[in-house]
């Protein structure tokens, strides 16, 4: 009865989209912070290879965060 009144597909998609967006943004941005924090520590410890790896992690996280937000905005504007 309820399923015929309520558009469960839209509700389900809302739940999934909200969870994926918030979890994804938090994870990728946390990677940015992790990368930046380790970059500073490794550079100070004179470990250039580890510092470069941490820097790459930070940049990757930043790209993924920006891309995720941009994708979300494009989806919002497309309807």
């Amino acid at each position, binding site marked *: 009865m309820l399923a015929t009144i*309520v558009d469960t597909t839209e509700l389900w998609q*809302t739940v999934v989209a909200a*969870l994926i967006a918030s979890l994804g943004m938090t994870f990728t*941005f946390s990677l940015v*912070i992790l990368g930046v*924090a380790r970059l500073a520590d490794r550079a100070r410890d004179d470990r250039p290879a580890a510092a470069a790896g941490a820097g790459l992690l930070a940049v990757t996280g930043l790209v993924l965060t920006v891309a995720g937000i941009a994708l979300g905005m494009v989806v919002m504007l497309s309807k």
Partner: protein
Amino acid sequence: MSEDVILVIVVATALAFDFTNGFHDTANVVATSISTKAMSPRLAVGFAAILNFVGAFISLEVAATVANDVVEGGAITPTVVFAGLIGAIAWNLLTWWFGLPSSSSHALIGGVVGAVIAAVGTGAVLGDGVLGKVLIPALLAPTVAFVAGVITINIAYGVTGRERPGPVTRGFRLGQIVSGGLLALAHGTNDAQKTMGVITLALIANGTLAEDAGVPFWVVVSAATAIALGTYTGGWRIIRTMGTRIIKMDSAQGFSAQGAGAATILASTHFGFPLSTTHVITGGVMGAGAGKRVSAVRWGLAGNILVAWLLTLPAAAAIGAAAYGFTSLFGDGAAGPVIVSLLSLGGVAAIFIHRARQGSPVPATG
């Protein structure tokens, strides 16, 4: 001529409602950013006002839901819309007076539904739309934001927990500029659209727009401006009372709460669900708090949200119906809305003067 006077009164009342919506909700949007020192109060309020304005242009799905899925278009007259708005404003003021939790969004929809019932009966209420597009999403969305808040704070702590606290705190504060901006954007797009939907309903009822017409651009601009001005104006009062009202949390929690709230509101807006943004943001904040330490959360807030959810729609509907009945006493012309508007303005002025003398803070509704 009489119809045009009523229409002008309806549009002005709707924009006034939108202004108060922004005024009340500033605290929800900026509190976490200010609490964690991610932004200064002045910057946070200005930033939120601008993004509220921009957000109103992102989507029109919620406006379409309010205009088409709640009540039968044929049952709507400008006087019905006016009575619905009066019902919503009166309920918001009443709950503000008694310090009860309230949702402007639910009050608005309840007011319109009540006025329609008083005008033409229950047959004109689209029960499926009210249940499927308003009631169930209203309960589901804060729950989703809560769950997202719990999970995201654990992700944030899990990924960055072994690093030195200084860079992590600074990093999440920077992140809060983005997550706080997204929250303001989400608030603007969902809340401003409710006013757009109501004004569109009135324009269709007046014959100014065709039944299948979309939301006119001037309606979008004026609703966006009203909510942004309300946010900016409300912010200065919030800044003055900030010392006692903010929630204590760290920057990772602030980021998680804002991200969870923004994602939930934006996803719901995309599908046209008119939410209580206050309830969703509260859900995100409680989730981020519970994810760190369950006992740190004021669980009474969850009960308050449930009470507000159960009470607001029927109560606003009852006041909307009474407002329609009272307005109709003066006939079909503009006399009823003019008299009720003047009485309402007088009542609102008296309430604010009384409260200003008492120095009471402004509660948040959404």
